């Protein structure tokens, strides 16, 4: 947040004053819940503050909408991962329950990995997961996906490339 000079923080204040009401309606239409909406509007401005990138004056709405939409998608993804994970936990014996901190760490890690994989086609994604989570050989993966062993290698290569591009793109 220290990246914002005084001129910038003035611009952000203006962005907040002029567009918050509109942005709140925009987000609420997508989320429904007023609490999450307030959070997400707040996060949108935080995101802009942290990136230090401000929109051109005529472009504010489009820019805010773009960032907010991205955050809405993230939120749905996280929610889906959280609820699938909790559902999984519920089927485990209580003695094996991880501590709350551990659960949060697991959810974070799952969100991170799913972000890397999100744009990959189903089989490409599965090929990498079967290798990395189940430790299967290419031959076994080929059997599981009903494709040739050479296709498995191509899928894995493509998945690795996709992950890497996703990871690099994300920082920008």
């Amino acid at each position: 947040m220290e990246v914002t000079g005084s001129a910038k923080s003035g611009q952000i204040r203006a962005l907040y004053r002029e567009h918050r009401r509109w942005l709140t309606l925009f987000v609420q239409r997508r989320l429904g819940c007023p609490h999450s909406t307030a959070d997400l509007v707040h996060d949108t401005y935080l995101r802009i503050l942290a990136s230090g990138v401000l929109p051109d004056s005529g472009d504010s709405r489009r820019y805010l909408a773009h960032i907010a939409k991205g955050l809405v998608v993230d939120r749905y993804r996280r929610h889906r991962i959280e609820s699938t994970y909790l559902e999984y936990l519920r089927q485990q014996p209580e003695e094996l329950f991880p501590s709350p901190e551990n659960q949060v760490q697991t959810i974070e890690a799952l969100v991170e990995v799913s972000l890397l994989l999100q744009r990959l086609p189903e089989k490409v994604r599965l090929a990498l997961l079967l290798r990395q989570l189940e430790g299967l050989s290419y031959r076994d993966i080929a059997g599981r996906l009903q494709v040739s062993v050479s296709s498995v290698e191509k899928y894995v290569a493509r998945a690795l490339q996709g992950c890497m591009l996703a990871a690099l793109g994300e920082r920008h």
Partner: protein
Amino acid sequence: MKSKGLSTETIRQASDWMARLWADEVAESERRAFQHWLEQHQDNKKAWLQLQQLQEKFKQLPDPEAGRAVLMPTAQRNRRLLLWAGLSLGVTTLFGSRNATQHPSVTQTYFTETGQIKPVILSDGTELILNTNTRVYARIDYHRRQLYLGKGEVMITTATGSRPFLVASHEGHISPLGTRFSVRQLNKQTQVRVYKGRVALRLAQAAGVREIDAGHSAVFSANAVFSVPSQNGDHAWTHRRLVATRMPLPQFARELSRYRNGIMRVHPQLQGLVVTGVFSLENTDQALHNLSQVLPLKVRYLTPYWVSLTPS
């Protein structure tokens, strides 16, 4: 756009090499070629290191089993489908030739989210009511009518018809004989409750047929059947109600938590309490609140997904 000056081409090459070196068999000449590539350019080394670091993320998933459950739901579902194919005699070929990520086109899927209760009418007129968090696969054709319960619970009122009807769960088959009955998938067991008519039960790993008459229930594993007494309120869920008659609180909490996301805990001091009453399943927060009015307990929300019942 690509940061740190790495070109898309370098990233592609690094990915190709990693995929190659992970193969089941790697020739010595290939290893040498890789070493050569690695030393050819500073960027190659950089891309390789970054790719390796990225893979650490997969290894760092604290619980691989959880990773599988969350990131590969389709793979799991299909394993179950294959199990179904194995159970339902004579249909293996239908599934066997298909790739592992597709549903057979003749199968319809019906499902509910947590908290949802939904009626469905199949093409032959059979009525289903899907309870919370349920997934049912149905195949109706000229020769047979088959249902597979992937998870959850379903109430089935069969339409009359001469085509054989079969319900498969993980642990066995149920063939109804003109009936209304419910099937619920438990952890490694299946529960059947018969309200009208009769059903025949065949276990996945045991010979013989067991029949269950109206008014009776059974829980079965893949190789054994246990009878359990039926209770009045058993099918109240089809009317979106939970009816408890001197139900131990932990059991009540388990039942109610089927209809909400997250985790519900009962304090050890409360384990002995029993619940009697009719609770709505439409709003489980309200049901919990009502519970706290009749029993000496407090409902504490750590988060909306984590509820604890503690002594008041």
